[in-house]
């Protein structure tokens, strides 16, 4: 990093600290949107929120190889004319660099209908090093600066792995098999 950038990071140190918590963030869908997309034919979504017991957590880990961190899991039962269409599970994964909320639709027999990202947050301190950081602040209040997250709409570059979500879906399928199918 050259002299200019180093000075620049120093000058911008205060707002940077706040913003670097969520450098790249995007909200895609509400839970209601995701329900419509994954179960377009469904008329009702019955709240089926689960509280996972300690034993169930262990069984989920054993079956999927992925640890179930949360006690509560948001689940809805999708129905049309009393016909059971499947489950909608809302889940979160925390990676080294990102925090992702997603919805997965599952058929009654445990096949994945689709996985939709609801919100995506990168927690890296990337922008601290951003070369054109200063330009970002031109004519913007601090309030405006916080909206920078949305401004950065598209990043071309090192491909981010979606393995966390893939693992999360594996865990949700184990939860389906162990808790939803039996319950």
């Amino acid at each position: 990093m050259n002299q200019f950038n180093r000075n620049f990071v120093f000058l911008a140190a205060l707002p940077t600290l706040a913003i670097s918590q969520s450098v790249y963030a995007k909200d895609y869908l509400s839970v209601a949107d995701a329900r419509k997309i994954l179960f377009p034919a469904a008329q009702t979504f019955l709240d089926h929120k689960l509280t996972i017991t300690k034993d169930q957590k262990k069984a989920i880990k054993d079956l999927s190889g992925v640890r179930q961190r949360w006690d509560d899991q948001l689940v809805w039962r999708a129905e049309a004319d009393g016909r059971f269409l499947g489950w909608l599970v809302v889940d979160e994964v925390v990676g080294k660099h990102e925090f992702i909320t997603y919805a997965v639709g599952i058929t009654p027999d445990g096949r994945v209908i689709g996985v939709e990202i609801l919100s995506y947050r990168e927690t890296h301190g990337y922008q601290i090093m951003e070369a054109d950081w200063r330009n970002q602040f031109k004519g913007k209040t601090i309030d405006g600066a916080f909206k920078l997250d949305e401004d950065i709409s598209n990043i071309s570059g090192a491909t981010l792995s979606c393995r966390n979500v893939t693992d999360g879906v594996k865990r949700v399928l184990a939860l389906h098999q162990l808790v939803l199918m039996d319950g």
Partner: protein
Amino acid sequence: MADTVRQRPLLGTFVEIGVDGAGPAADAAVTAAFAEIAAIHDLLSFQSPDSALSAFNRDPMAWHDLAPAFRRVLGLSMLLMWHSGGLFNPTVGGQLVARGALPPTGGPMPLPFGQLGDFDMNGNRLRLKRPLALTFDGIAKGFAVDRAVAIVRRAGFTSGWVDAGGDMRAFGNSKLRVRRRETNGSITRLGELSGGAVATSVVAPQVDERFPGLTVSAGDNAPAPGAWTVCARYAWQADALTKVAALAGDADRAALLNRLHGALIAGPAVAGAA
């Protein structure tokens, strides 16, 4: 800004699709576009043992009937191999396996790389004359983006974009401000994309968690490390031309890319300076 913007985990990354419309028709079109991307992945993934490509690579010297998309990507790859003087080369699978960037094929260990003369084609049927492994990792993601764009346009949406983690294409009136994630994690503003495609490939010294891909040469020229960003009309072109950019000599890189209907937007200079 598009009215519908959705993201799904596909192609080992996050794929975002935006269209200038909302409601059930837009949702259905975007869902169909995601499904098409998943179908291309299922066909052409080297990593997935169940893909048509993996079935081919397990027994590359026997005749295989190719699905239309497989045939199309192969044709585009061979054209680009010819016109780039072999800088783009879909037969480097063996070398990528040997270096640990791709899993073993399940067949005999393939040769590191081949040449155009190794292809034996008969209509939609293909065999290779030597034991090689095909990889479309340098082109399939872009191709999948193009197919997704075609799906939403066919559904009647005139503006939008598809962004597959570095490979993106905008169509109609959609404009995308594009930034690039550098090898050191910093982010550089590149510009605005409309009516075309842009792709970035990172040439990392070795495979690791953040840079799972590897660009390899089928000749003596080593790929220049850093991030390479190329724009072109189609995403498959932009995707494949990033590999040509990384492997071309400094003297004729720009001219070669232009001849191949692409343009270098940014080389690794920015990353190197940081």
